[in-house]
């Protein structure tokens, strides 16, 4: 598992996949500074066509709302504070789930990585467990924990747990043998070996795990709002818009979800870079 996050880590629901790509492949798709305007051509043309179609009433449907209408709805949601309330509810839940899931994942992953017998006993069961699509748990969770915030946080913790466990255990197991050899030569105790050699060497992988947990739990946040409908959140805005055939609300909700996901990616990558610099890697 490589320390470098893929260059296109912005790909919300697919970063886990990108993380499996060879690290040296990263820079190949990095944006080049010059010619960035080209990236704006497609969206600009699309929006222009969309606006034109809406203005000319090309499609006789209430669903074809104009870009201006979407912007106006978005502005309304922002000014009235509804957007903030929704975002707050969603993000608070996500954060709670992320913290619980990551802590649990660090403990479980650490045990799996450091304790061979524990790994032999629990590892296979865990690998089977993680094969089950996360969302398939929702009906069971809803029976056990209801439809409220508790159920959502349980689900989000589960979503965050899996990548942290996998990457923590992998990172620990992939400590270079040469480093362990050095620790042995220096006569490090087991605790010293773990604290000074294994954990620093596993740190990038662990960070990748937490980063993936962030991505997963945001996805799960939206999913939970769909499937455990209760309370308010960004996902509920979307559902409401869909139920009332308000395409403008739906589109604005989509943009918000995408934007939050992007902001999280960008933030996590910035933290990762500064961490990497501090660790001198």
């Amino acid at each position, binding site marked *: 598992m490589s320390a470098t996050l893929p260059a296109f880590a912005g*790909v*919300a629901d*697919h970063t886990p996949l990108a993380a499996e790509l060879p690290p040296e492949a990263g820079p190949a798709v990095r944006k080049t500074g010059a010619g960035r305007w080209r990236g704006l051509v497609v969206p600009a043309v699309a929006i222009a066509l969309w606006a034109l179609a809406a203005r000319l009433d090309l499609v006789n449907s209430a669903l074809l709302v104009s870009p201006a209408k979407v912007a106006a709805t978005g502005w309304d949601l922002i000014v009235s504070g509804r957007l903030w309330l929704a975002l707050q509810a969603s993000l608070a839940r996500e954060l709670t789930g992320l913290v619980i899931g990551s802590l649990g994942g660090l403990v479980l992953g650490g045990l799996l990585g450091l304790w*061979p017998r524990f790994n032999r006993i629990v590892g296979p069961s865990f690998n089977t467990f993680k*094969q089950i699509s996360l969302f398939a748990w929702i009906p069971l969770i809803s*029976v056990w924990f209801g439809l409220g915030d508790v159920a959502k946080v349980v689900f989000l913790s589960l979503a965050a747990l899996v990548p942290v466990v996998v990457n923590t255990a992998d990172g620990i197991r992939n*400590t270079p043998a040469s480093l362990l050899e050095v620790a042995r030569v220096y006569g490090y105790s087991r605790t010293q070996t773990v604290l000074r050699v294994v954990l620093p060497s596993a740190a990038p992988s662990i960070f990748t795990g937490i980063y993936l947990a962030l991505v997963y739990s945001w996805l799960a946040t939206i999913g939970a709002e769909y499937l455990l409908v209760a309370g308010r959140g960004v996902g509920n805005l979307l559902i409401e818009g869909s139920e009332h055939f308000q395409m403008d609300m739906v589109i604005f909700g989509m943009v918000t979800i*995408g934007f939050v996901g992007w902001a999280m990616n960008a933030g996590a990558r910035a933290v990762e870079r500064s961490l990497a610099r501090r660790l001198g890697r």
Partner: protein
Amino acid sequence: MSAATPRAVPNPVVRRVEPFLLPIALLTLWAVGAAQGWISEQVLPPPQFVWETLRDLATSGDLWMHAQASLQRVVVGFIVGSALGLALGTAMGLSKKAEAYLLPTFNALVQIPVLGWMPFVLLLVGIGEPLKYILIAKAALVPVALNTLQGFRQAPATLREVGRVYGYSRRQQVLEIVLPTALPTLFTGLRLGFTKAWLSLVVVELVASSEGLGYLIVYGRQLFQLDLVMAAVIVVGAVGYAIDRLLDLAERKVAARNGAIA
């Protein structure tokens, strides 16, 4: 391998038994708990209940009907999505210009998860089969396109240099150097695409469907028949696992053959 200091390795019999300890313990706890009435049947039906339900589903043919509906959606969605993904990835991978025009938009759209697209597509095409096909295709498209792009970019400079020395045409460069080195990554993309498609299928069926394995889960939940829910979850997990293993095997075959060339 392991970071832990090597200690006495347990004998092979112990090793073989160890992975089953936890599942057996949990299953026993579950069975005993249900038998003793510690847990209400509504909350956690006893394991033999789940097993019976699973058997009933299989013998009555319901299971096959639902599994078939699900598989058809996944296969159609995956084929459409991966074909588009391959085309898009190839275009961006072979032409820097196409990448400059398309990739930023692609990256922006990809930020929105399948569930975010759902209400939008739902309003556009309604709740029928096209909704499922579109969402599953979208889920498969992204990893396929990204891995294709990546694959086409990773031909080693030395190999390309060799091609130049031999005076390869652009066509030859692509067919004989870029494509073979891209193949394993392409395949990884397809495998991940299928995995994503399967995961999205479950989500889509949970939210909006009247048949399929995901629907079976929702149906069981509505009737408060947790044995049905659990049986369906087991089938979903098993099918997903089987598909993943198969594709993994195929991927390693491709990689091995490719390794033999390189």
